[in-house]
């Protein structure tokens, strides 16, 4: 199928530039194959992350022709071959080298979220009962492969750098002062909280966390996150919007949360008013 030019960003924290490489394209090839070919034959020190090459681990995130993508799931036949294919690292995160960025911030955000705590077991053998329809909606959120592409495109992080502050102990906080010091958890962690908040067995209230530490209010529902999610999770419609409603409810009526959690514990179905888009 011929040769295609790849214009790949090479460099590190101190700066860098695009460099052109040629790769031989064959049927069914994906962008990651081309990067590997270049690595094996022309640039053995070309850094990129990958693990599964099957869209399952979320390691190979990058920007291909300006679009945030998994390189292993971007087929060459979906890209024009007569002009160079541009590959850049994700923009929102600090560069380590070439296509590899420092995504450790995301792991620090995750640590802020209090873990799952179930209600007492439903059956004497220590197990619980949940219906499939009760778990369907959180199974959608749990499909997340932590590729962080949604974090990468969210303008609150990408343009407004709301990465918070890290204290001496390495713990992330929502700092005072300039707006950059304020923390926004980002879409990935909004749906992680959603997967816990809407978990039929969970008993923890994370609404104050959403409002204060993770600053859910900073999201203005542009839906850019949903557009790039390779798992097609309805991040905004099914996750963030219902969470925002819950936060508002709680703010005006703190009893709401308790009522809802007790209702859930008794097996009462959730409020009908929550929008639910079919996954």
């Amino acid at each position, binding site marked *: 199928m011929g040769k295609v030019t790849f214009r790949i960003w090479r460099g*590190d924290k101190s700066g860098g530039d695009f460099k052109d490489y040629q790769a031989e394209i*064959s*049927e*069914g*090839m*994906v962008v990651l*194959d081309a990067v590997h070919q270049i*690595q*094996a*034959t022309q640039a*053995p*020190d*070309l*850094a*990129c*992350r*990958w*693990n*599964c*090459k*099957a*869209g*399952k*681990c*979320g*390691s190979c995130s990058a920007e291909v022709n300006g679009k945030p993508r998994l390189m292993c*799931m971007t*087929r060459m036949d979906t890209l024009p071959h007569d002009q160079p294919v541009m590959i850049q690292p994700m923009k929102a995160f600090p560069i*380590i*080298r*070439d296509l*590899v960025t*420092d*995504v*450790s911030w995301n*792991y620090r955000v*995750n*640590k802020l979220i209090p*873990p*799952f705590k*179930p209600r007492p077991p439903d059956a004497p053998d*220590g*197990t*619980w*009962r*949940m*219906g*499939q329809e009760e*778990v369907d909606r*959180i*199974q959608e959120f*749990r*499909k*997340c*492969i*932590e590729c962080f592409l949604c974090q990468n495109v969210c303008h609150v992080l990408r343009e407004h750098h709301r990465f918070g502050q890290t204290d001496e102990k390495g713990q992330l906080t929502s700092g005072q002062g300039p707006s950059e010091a304020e923390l926004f958890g980002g879409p990935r962690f909004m749906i992680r909280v959603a997967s*816990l908040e809407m*978990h039929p067995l*969970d008993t923890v209230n994370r609404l104050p966390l959403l409002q204060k530490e993770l600053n859910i209010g900073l999201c203005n529902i542009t839906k850019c996150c949903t557009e790039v999610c390779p798992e097609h999770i309805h991040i905004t419609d099914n996750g963030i919007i219902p969470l925002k409603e819950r936060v508002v409810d709680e703010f005006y009526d703190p009893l709401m949360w308790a009522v809802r959690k007790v209702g859930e514990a008794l097996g009462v179905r959730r409020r009908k008013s929550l929008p639910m888009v079919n996954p």
Partner: protein
Amino acid sequence: MNIQTYEHDVIVVGAGGAGLRAAIEASAAGVSVGLVCKSLLGKAHTVMAEGGIAAALANVDERDNWKVHFADTMRGGQYVNNWRMAQIHAQEAPDRVRELEAWGAVFDRTPDGRILQRNFGGHRYPRLAHVGDRTGLEMIRTLQDHGIHQGIAVYMECTIISLLKDGERVVGALGYYRENGRFVVFHAKAVVLATGGVGKAYKITSNSWEYTGDGHALAYHAGAELQDMEFVQFHPTGMVWPPSVRGILVTEGVRGEGGILLNSEGRRFMFDDIPENYRNQTAKNEEEGFRYCLGDKNANRPPELLTRDHVARCIRREVKEGRGSPHGGVYLDVSWMTKPGAFSKFKDPEFVRSRIKDPVEHIKKKLPSMYHQFKELGGLDITKEPMEVGPTTHYIMGGIRVDPDTQMSRVPGLFACGECACGINGANRLGGNSLSDLLVFGKRAGEFAAKYAKEHSAGRINPQQVEEEMRAALAFLDSPLGQENPFQVQYDLQNVMQDLVGIVRTEAEMVKALERIQELKERAKRSFAPGNREYNPGWHTCLDLRNLLTVSEAITRAAIERRESRGAQFREDYPEKKAEYGNRNTIVSKGPNGEMQFRWEPIPEMPAELKRIIEEMK
């Protein structure tokens, strides 16, 4: 020694299911735990597991219990399994799965709200707890999100390159950070290896770049024994087309949901060759097989769900005899059920129609990631067309020889669990038995490593050993010996193993393979990585190659010695199973002069109680 050093009671190498579970358990025992992994947390191979976790919960079929699971595992492994491990595994797996639910995992549900279980090859009853076809993701995320709150120190993108010893004992490990190439020493009282498998020794594999046999090689060089290395599982259904996705797994769940295998003549060839010891458990006709997939408890499983070794060989036979698909595989078809009148040929079509209202939706709901995988990578709609599939290197049953109860190797302080350890699977692993293995023996490894750490003081690290290992690692950046391209050496090795030590083996070819491996070892020593130490994949490949070569040699030597066909090992020159090989395991270890040694280890007599279980379940 001016190098960063971390002190922990227990160091766990590997953050897949096994490593995470071990770290959680050790931490719960009150010792300080460090968890080291080559890639980012949550990206380990476990994340790719699709089909499910095998555990005799008996939620779907009340006839299931640990004894049936045990007997199935032993039958699948052709009785060279470590029976004690198979027993512990079958007994403890249900608790380990329920525990995941208590930590927030959300499995698919039965109509009465319990954990749903699905059919899989070689399991008598529906036994695999699952979440669609992304069970591994659910498992690793649950362990990860639970684990990060247990006070475990996590060292990500840090690769261990050697184990450090004080006399006989393991006292730590040396690694480097991928990000900056800096070395780091972990000083510990006990080390748990949970590094996964070796699939990257082969050209066609479902495994990721991490599967370079690091744990196997680390343990081998530290004095541990490797057992049953000849048993490499070739999963029958990997993608074969297009070329760039060759090897990517097509989950067995496709067959569990009623997918059938066809040759180019349209014949369902799996009905043609059903092994004697499975005859009583296999469907007599297509309708019975499909009813089994739909949960009819009186039906037997379709022949597509026979054990992996058998299905893989049948596929290879069809291809070899000229009945393959255009790209050298066979057809795997679920789309048959979407064709008009698909069920009319059955005696009782209403039974099927009552379970499957809309076949297209049924397929999409049961196999969402397979649907996407083929749509996006293969440009094919599996609800409309058959897939092309062929065998792919998937899993290694062999591994570090450990004590069945404590998971300690013969090197004091060195533990192993998960795919890099050996015992439960024998000559062939049943699908789903790996994820449960990770949980059961990960927990045990963590528990006993913590116990060992409490009972022993910290050993002394030998700075000279550290210096030597670092010097050897850095040599690849200077190329004092030559300019071999490490990627090319790895590629050549993959071809050798694929062609000469693959799914069908002969003595002559494997002897040739050993010669080629020796040549490749020399070339690997001369391999060269231009650039510096910062995130340099060429350099990483130079270092990984050493391990790949060690495990490739171990696989080949063990495969030569087992002069019979059993489970995953098929010898064209010895096509029959032989009784005299049925009671022993192959062992390789490092000899006094650095050469690889071979010996046989007899399997201890099974207790009468377990024998009786096997007899009853025959």
